[in-house]
């Protein structure tokens, strides 16, 4: 179950892929908020074996996050309400980036703001940093200037935000969509129309749990984000909806991926690459295992280039 790290060190040409303007050694990245700033996993897996990693979401200033309890387990999933805690751009550049620069894999920096200007400011500063291969905008944040409604919920607001960030970000710009929507396609279109390079689908689904003994919410902020295997069917559906709509934008699939087969489902549904989130808590070496399992699948199915799988869902007779 647990892998020797070196087996993945040698590059496997069949797994090389491209997504949203970035070339990856293989289609498996680790998801924002579940892989720290990379260094924490250095002792556990071979970072250079990864397709890439996405950092915890960064904001212009440091943030301390929400009061505890912040997480709880649910059926095949978990809720979190960390509160976007992070070290801020400055400390990130100073303390976290040097390690990331030398870790041998692609680095995407997830970022956000609480106002339009904060997004633009943060995006511009991060894009200017050496060692950052691309940015992923987390738009599931409350817009404090608009009554706390998430930026990413309204295609118009989202489009404007993407456009403004695009203007200052010369590096690949991905947008991570919220699943708390009735129309994921409209959100993806707003990103494509405004120059984003890829959409990451999906962020967590808003959920809730109650401790019946105390009658209190299980997480202090009442609502939290649901992640893990429970959400995979929803994530996969949204990836496929966007792919099927033929929007000219690459897709990175996220949600409940536990093994190679799960990852391949996302590729078949139309994702060019995937991110592994909660599974890194369950099995810290899983990203490595998943890469090997994809490789085995390709070998067994006679797939010589993993990109052949993208959108390869078989329909009809």
């Amino acid at each position, binding site marked *: 179950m647990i892998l020797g790290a070196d087996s993945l060190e040698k590059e496997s040409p069949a797994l090389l892929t491209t997504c949203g303007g970035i070339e990856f050694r293989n289609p498996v990245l680790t998801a924002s908020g579940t892989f720290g700033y990379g260094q924490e996993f250095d002792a556990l897996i071979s970072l250079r074996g990864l397709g890439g990693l996405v950092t915890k979401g960064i904001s212009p200033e440091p943030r301390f996050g929400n009061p*505890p309890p912040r997480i709880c*387990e649910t059926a095949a999933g978990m809720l979190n309400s960390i509160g976007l805690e992070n070290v801020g751009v400055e400390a990130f550049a100073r303390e976290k980036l040097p390690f990331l620069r030398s870790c041998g894999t692609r680095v995407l920096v997830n970022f956000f703001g609480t106002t339009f200007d904060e997004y633009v400011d943060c995006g511009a500063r991060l894009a200017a940093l050496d060692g950052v291969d691309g940015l992923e905008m987390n738009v599931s944040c409350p817009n404090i200037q608009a009554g706390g409604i998430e930026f990413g919920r309204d295609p118009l607001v989202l489009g404007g935000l993407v456009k403004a960030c695009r203007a200052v970000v010369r590096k690949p710009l991905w947008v991570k969509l919220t699943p708390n929507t009735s129309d994921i396609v409209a959100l993806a279109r707003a990103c494509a129309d405004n120059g984003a390079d890829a959409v990451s689908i999906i962020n967590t689904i808003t959920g809730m749990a109650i401790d019946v003994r105390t009658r209190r919410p299980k997480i202090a902020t009442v609502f939290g984000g649901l992640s893990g295997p429970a959400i995979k069917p929803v994530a996969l559906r949204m990836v496929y909806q966007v792919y099927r709509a033929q929007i000219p934008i690459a897709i990175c699939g996220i949600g409940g991926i536990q093994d190679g087969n799960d990852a391949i489902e996302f590729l078949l549904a139309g994702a060019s690459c995937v991110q592994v989130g*909660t599974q890194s808590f369950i099995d810290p070496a899983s990203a490595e295992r998943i890469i090997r399992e994809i490789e085995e699948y390709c070998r067994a199915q006679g797939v010589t280039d993993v990109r052949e799988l993208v959108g390869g869902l078989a329909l009809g007779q």
Partner: protein
Amino acid sequence: MRYFDARVIENRSLGGGYFVLRLGGCEPLAGSRPGQFIMLRGDWGRDPLLPRPLSLLSVAHEGRADLLAKVVGKGTALMERSPPGSRVSVLGPLGNSFPAPSADVTDLLVAGGVGLPPLFMQAESAAHLGLANGSEMLYGGRTSRDLVLLGEIRGFGIALRLATEDGSLGRRGRVTDELEARLDRGRAAASAQPLRIMACGPRQMLWAVGRIAQSHGIDCYLSLEEQMACGIGVCLGCAVAAQTRPYRYVCKDGPVFPASEVMAHVSVASTSQSRGGAQ
């Protein structure tokens, strides 16, 4: 800290839902210190999903590690039923530890119920260092069934005082009553040695121990618990309110904290605020 496969080599029931799980193949845990813990997960599919944090009870030669756990939910129930030979995955050793026993202080090890393991290991370590007479354990539970491994603890040669809420063993009352009594006696005897308190147990007990220590001006270390997902500081799930900065993390800053660092914010720590749930 390593991530590795281990194997249950013995699973001993102690009654009352308590059991000692002995693992083999835990060479990477050699050198672990009292207070440190592991994230443990059995081969049980997706239910429960996350690994479970368990303190180390004892780490011996040849990759043997002992854990003491109590059945409270699904994960611990599955562990309790794991037969010898079961495979488990282990991430550890994690977290910090209690200060090492020292010839210059007398340590009061205060254990409540299943909070025993780190203090058991601390006592074992004192015994190994020949400092058993500088440690005393105060161990409380609801009934006599909650006080386990007494023979082993006595084997360390440290003083042991027991308390049960129903009076079925030792003093009738809480372990904090026993602690106050001990401190009063100590004051009366004006003992030469300075005291240090180390405690692990239910949250309410820990705050009570912290307050007692504070009022007596005694150094105090508390081993805290919080819901955990990763155990290595990346999920930021195990936050506790603290003095020095808004939050500290049980898995990487703890589980052992100076009481002074976490006590001041006790009320903040239990605040529920109704805000949006962004990560």
